[in-house]
């Protein structure tokens, strides 16, 4: 097991290195220097050259890459010249709020999706299954901001249960947790989108497992239908969903972006959105990298989770 983890970590590091290189190259190609962003678009050539020299942007790209890597190891993601703060500090401020939003949405969606998928599989082709499938399909095809809008219209404007956006009074993750009413809509929006894909997966995986002989044997042992589902089906049917959850971490991140934008919730996504407008490339690069690292980690964690849950997976 330990050897497996070590090997997986090494591969993960290699992939992260590759991702960093590719992302750095793309971003660097788009904007070789933040000089114009800092000095203004009308800055003289000489001013730009001297700014570049001063901040190390005149060095060869490969050198810049390695110095960036060196900083990265020390969790230094560069400096936002627009906001006059280090990217790490900016992230540090927002990460809690974003994590809470994603985490709560993920947990909520699993709580709904896993039983729903199994129920759909057990009662396949019933009116309830068709209805759930139809809703899932629609949600699956629904852009997150549009779903958010509909929920805002319904629950904030028409029924007046929840606020339209998250207020400015939420400045820390703790406040976000203690003001559930304010965050209800964003969390539900994000969760519903995940329910759509998770429960479809769960349904099809449960259907596959239900057709297996061991389910038949469990029934032939005299187990009740409930016991068959809980003791035999649940664990096996959940295995593919574990991978999906691992893979959906970056999707959550991108989902965050639009949800935070729509509900005006100041998290990493909103920071990224503002950086897009400001062409603040250090923030953009850092966010992309965080996303990539989370993807790799998500994969790794999913693999390890599967390895512990499924004795068939050989760890060598």
């Amino acid at each position, binding site marked *: 097991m330990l050897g497996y983890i070590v090997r997986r970590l090494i591969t993960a590091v290699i992939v992260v290195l590759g991702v960093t290189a590719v992302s750095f190259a793309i971003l660097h190609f788009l904007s070789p220097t933040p000089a114009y962003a800092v000095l203004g678009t009308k800055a003289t050539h000489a001013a730009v050259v001297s700014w570049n020299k001063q901040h190390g942007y005149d060095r060869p790209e490969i050198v810049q890459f390695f110095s960036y890597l060196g900083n990265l190891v020390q969790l230094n993601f560069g400096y936002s010249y627009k906001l006059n703060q280090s990217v790490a500090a900016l992230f540090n401020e927002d990460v809690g709020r974003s994590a809470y939003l994603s985490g709560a949405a993920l947990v909520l969606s699993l709580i709904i999706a896993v039983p729903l998928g199994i129920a759909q599989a057990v009662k396949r*082709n019933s009116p309830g299954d068709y209805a759930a499938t139809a809703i899932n399909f629609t949600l699956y095809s629904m852009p997150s901001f549009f779903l958010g809008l509909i929920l805002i219209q319904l629950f904030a404007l028409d029924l007046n249960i929840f606020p339209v956006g998250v207020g400015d009074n939420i400045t820390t993750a703790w406040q976000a947790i203690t003001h559930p009413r304010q965050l209800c809509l964003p969390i539900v929006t994000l969760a519903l989108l995940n329910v759509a894909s998770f429960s479809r997966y769960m349904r099809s995986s449960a259907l596959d497992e239900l057709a297996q002989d061991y389910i038949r044997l469990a029934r032939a042992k005299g187990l009740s239908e409930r016991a068959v589902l809980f003791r035999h089906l649940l664990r096996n049917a959940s295995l593919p969903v574990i991978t999906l959850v691992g893979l959906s971490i970056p999707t959550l991140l991108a989902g965050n972006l639009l949800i935070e934008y729509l509900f005006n919730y100041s998290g990493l996504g909103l920071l990224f959105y503002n950086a897009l407008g400001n062409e603040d490339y250090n923030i953009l690069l850092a966010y992309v990298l965080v996303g990539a690292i989370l993807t790799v980690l998500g994969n790794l964690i999913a693999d390890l989770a599967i390895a512990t849950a499924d004795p068939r997976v050989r760890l060598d």
Partner: protein
Amino acid sequence: MTEPRKTGSQELEELGTAALSVPGPSRGLSELTPDGGEVQAIASGWRLALREFASNRLAVICLALLLLLVLFCFLGPLFYHTDQTYTNILNTNLPPSGSHLLGTDENGFDELGRIMVGGQAAFEVGGFASGVAIVIGTLYGAISGLVGGFVDGLLMRFVDILLSIPFLLIVLVIATKYSGTVVEISLILGVFTWLVPARLVRGEVLTLRTRDFVLAAQTMGSSRARLIYRHLIPNAMSVTIVNVTFLIADSILSLAYLGVLGEGLTPPHTSWGDMLGNAQTYVQNGYWWLVYPVGACLVFVVLAFNLVGDALRDAVDVRLQRR
């Protein structure tokens, strides 16, 4: 965003046939019948797939509606003349009326006419981006699968790396500099969506290579080129075709995301996402006609492509499973 899906009815079907395994009927064996028995005409492969697809009513309706929508977006402007170039500040945010069937937006553009223009962009980007992705993906995957060995490992590791980069984020970043026209956005989307088809095609090629009919062709002395164009390509096609449908849906959705965040097409072009950019304000001001019609179009198109893709996959599966 593609994943293995299986419909419930199909599952039951399999259960039934697995349990009973009933080959075609055989009756009236006369002296004239060769001892191998009769051959029951079922249907040709593609026709069988078509029939299976046609039996999925929902998908057929979706396909028909999609075609109608395409006609509406591209031919509609010929009959419903609107000015989509010059703003008209006197006519902003008008509710639907006889002269503006779906009202006007904040620049005074007729909303219905704008939905047509935005729809054109959606279909163009969907088609073009998925075309780019499927061409790159198929070639890359096929080469990787065919060459195999170390090269395959290397090529696939590169795909892993690119897949780890959050797609929407990197596309957004690039779009800040390079977006504007349909072609540019399609290229950006296409260049980052070929990864999944590449993996699928590679997987397909790898399994096909070990299939008995490919081995049989080898024992006949078939050349590598012949194996590829006669056996591998035709058999890998279905994966590709199904995938194109999902790619179109994904591209249209991505275009909408770009538009909402203000990184979409530059005026005078517009997309459905661009039109939804200020939706939150519209909703609060009660300008529902600026939000729901265009949103509904977007959801419908994506949904329809997903449903058609699902039905296609089932149809192709059935065709191959029918034994």
